[in-house]
């Protein structure tokens, strides 16, 4: 019997970058997984949580817990949304022991995409081929809250035709920060432009990341500047053949 995984594609991929979800599904299918997409899924609640609206975030988090109650392993194409579930749901339900127990049980089943591939599926070569020079942007929550640093790089190192060039500094924020990007637009934009300077410095043609939100920020600024550099989610790179 095929191994089963559930996709939590995140609201952003569902509504703005559906190809990332399709790419993630095709990589997982290639590895022999049977894919389940719980149709009631929406959002993890992070926008409300990060904006200080914990009651509203709790409501959305409960919906997530209910939607994925029967899933065995849940794969997410975002470090930030994964971290919301595996770290911050516990903050939301600290005073609600019954829900907290469900949260802790859920935490073990939720995986950021690259970590799922390297730690659970235990693959580094997914048979991808992409002739390109890329640089990898570490999303802050993937990097600092989940400790994801080598997994995406190991996966990229096995993509045929692909050259990875590290930017300096690689670990600095792109300035997105959720509602921060529209509450402090000039500041967020200035941070993004510093990031773009680092990207341009590598000579890469493509920026790869695990997080669609960072990529939206980076692509938005590149596009505004008229740059030919494009952005791709890691799943899209790994789905290329």
């Amino acid at each position: 019997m095929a191994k089963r995984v559930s996709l939590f594609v995140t609201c952003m991929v569902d509504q703005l970058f559906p190809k990332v979800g399709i790419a993630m599904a095709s990589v997982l299918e290639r590895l022999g997984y049977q894919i389940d997409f719980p149709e009631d899924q929406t959002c993890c609640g992070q926008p409300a949580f990060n904006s200080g609206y914990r009651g509203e975030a709790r409501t959305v988090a409960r919906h997530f817990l209910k939607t994925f109650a029967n899933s065995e392993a849940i794969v997410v194409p975002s470090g930030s949304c994964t971290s919301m579930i595996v770290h911050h749901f516990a903050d939301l339900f600290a005073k609600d022991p019954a829900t907290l127990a469900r949260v802790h049980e859920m935490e073990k089943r939720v995986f950021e995409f690259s970590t799922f591939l390297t730690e659970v599926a235990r693959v580094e070569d997914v048979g991808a081929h992409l002739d390109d020079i890329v640089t990898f942007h570490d999303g802050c929550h993937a990097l600092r809250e989940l400790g994801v640093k080598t997994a995406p790089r190991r996966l990229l190192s096995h993509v045929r035709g692909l050259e990875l060039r590290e930017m300096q500094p690689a670990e600095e924020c792109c300035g997105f920060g959720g509602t921060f990007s529209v509450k402090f637009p000039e500041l967020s934009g200035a941070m993004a432009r510093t990031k773009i300077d680092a990207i341009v410095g590598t000579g890469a043609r493509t920026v790869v990341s695990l997080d669609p939100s960072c990529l939206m920020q980076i692509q938005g600024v590149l596009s505004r500047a008229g740059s030919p550099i494009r952005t791709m989610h890691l799943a899209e790179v790994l789905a290329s053949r």
Partner: protein
Amino acid sequence: MSVEFDRKIKSTLADANLQLAIYTATARLKDKRIENVADDILPDYQELRTHANALKKHAIENLDHYLEEFERNVEAHGGKVIYCKDGTEVSDFVLGLAKERGAHLIVKSKSMTTEEIDLNERLEHHGLESVETDLGEYILQLAHERPYHIVAPALHMTRYDVADIFTKHLNVPNEVVIEKQTAIARSVLREKFLAADIGISGANFLVADSGAVVIVENEGNARLTTSAPKIHIAIAGIEKVIPRAQDLATFLKLLARSATGQPLSVYTSFLSGPRRAGEVDGPDEFYVVLLDNGRTKLLPDRSKRQSLYCIRCGACLNTCPVYRKIGGHSFPWVYSGPIGAIITPQFMGTSHEPGLPFASSLCGACGEVCPVKIDIPKVLLELRSDVKKAEAREKHGRIEKLAFGIFAWMMTHPRIYEMAGKIAAAMAPSDGGWIRTLPAPFNIGPVAAWLSQRDLPPPPAKSFRDMWRQR
């Protein structure tokens, strides 16, 4: 967010010279820190951080015990401890003592705690002369500015700025060579040290088991401040107390490395009590002022009280992508950067600048470099929640509250969420490329804010769930 905060952020971002000065100076400090905590130089760095965190946690949870122990030991050495609840009590004490002793001139070494209570202004208002003797602080005192940074107060100034300030205030020829500028300051300050009646210092650590005030510095001015005048007053926040002298083995390994990337600062002074019989140096009188100024308000909160662990190294400022853009003076109080963003709302109240905890992308770089492992992003998130609760009580920000209410409702009703997505996609004018501008009715609020800096992704022809169903 206040108009003032918004204005300062925008004006700092628009100043290209200032941007370069901040970015270069913080990069230097940041890189030196990274070099000096590297695995091959300090293999037990992470263990030291964990231990420092545990020590601070223990000290804060037993603050009353250690403050009393510290007080007993200071008094056993012939010193005196004074508890003050705010800046007024501190200045009353200093003014009273100055009057009794007929003192007129005070020299000061660097202290953020005295910046917090505007001590110089309070003393000068009563006719005392109070001179900063740390070079950076001295420059700022001449220029009538607040520190730009916790450890590098004049970080935003170039040597050309300093030359102009010295020429204007000290009547000296315009001198742009840094060594010569230092010599100018030194000659002025040396006279002040020799003539001063009182020396006021801060404290990096108050050691309970030995009653010692520990001061870490590079210029030697704190040594002179605390030993040349007849009276030494150390002013410290109550959270500076640590249990034992041996704990310094942990803290001193972390502090200078985190601050400036030095293995140790040039001078580390242990001061306990006035000059004893037979000693050549030291003051006749030794006072330690223990300041509350809002600190005890933090104690009841199990999570947020970790803000009191801070040892003021400034590493979080140097690594913060927000501080590195908006600089120190955009912040609404003397403490800037990530640590300023968490202590200002707690000391001064969230209404002092409600926008402050939101001025962060929550990237977490601050928490990663904090030598005492304060979870700054977590505290920021808690403060954001506090701000929203206060707004709800005061019936402010109702539109945003309503928007998040609708968000939560939509995200728990998948069919409505799906329909809303379809409507938004159908309405968005797009030729398939990234969107640079939108017509007036759409170009409002968050959308306009986004488009002010970057392009928007075009809505896809189909959502993921539509594509999935049709696979």
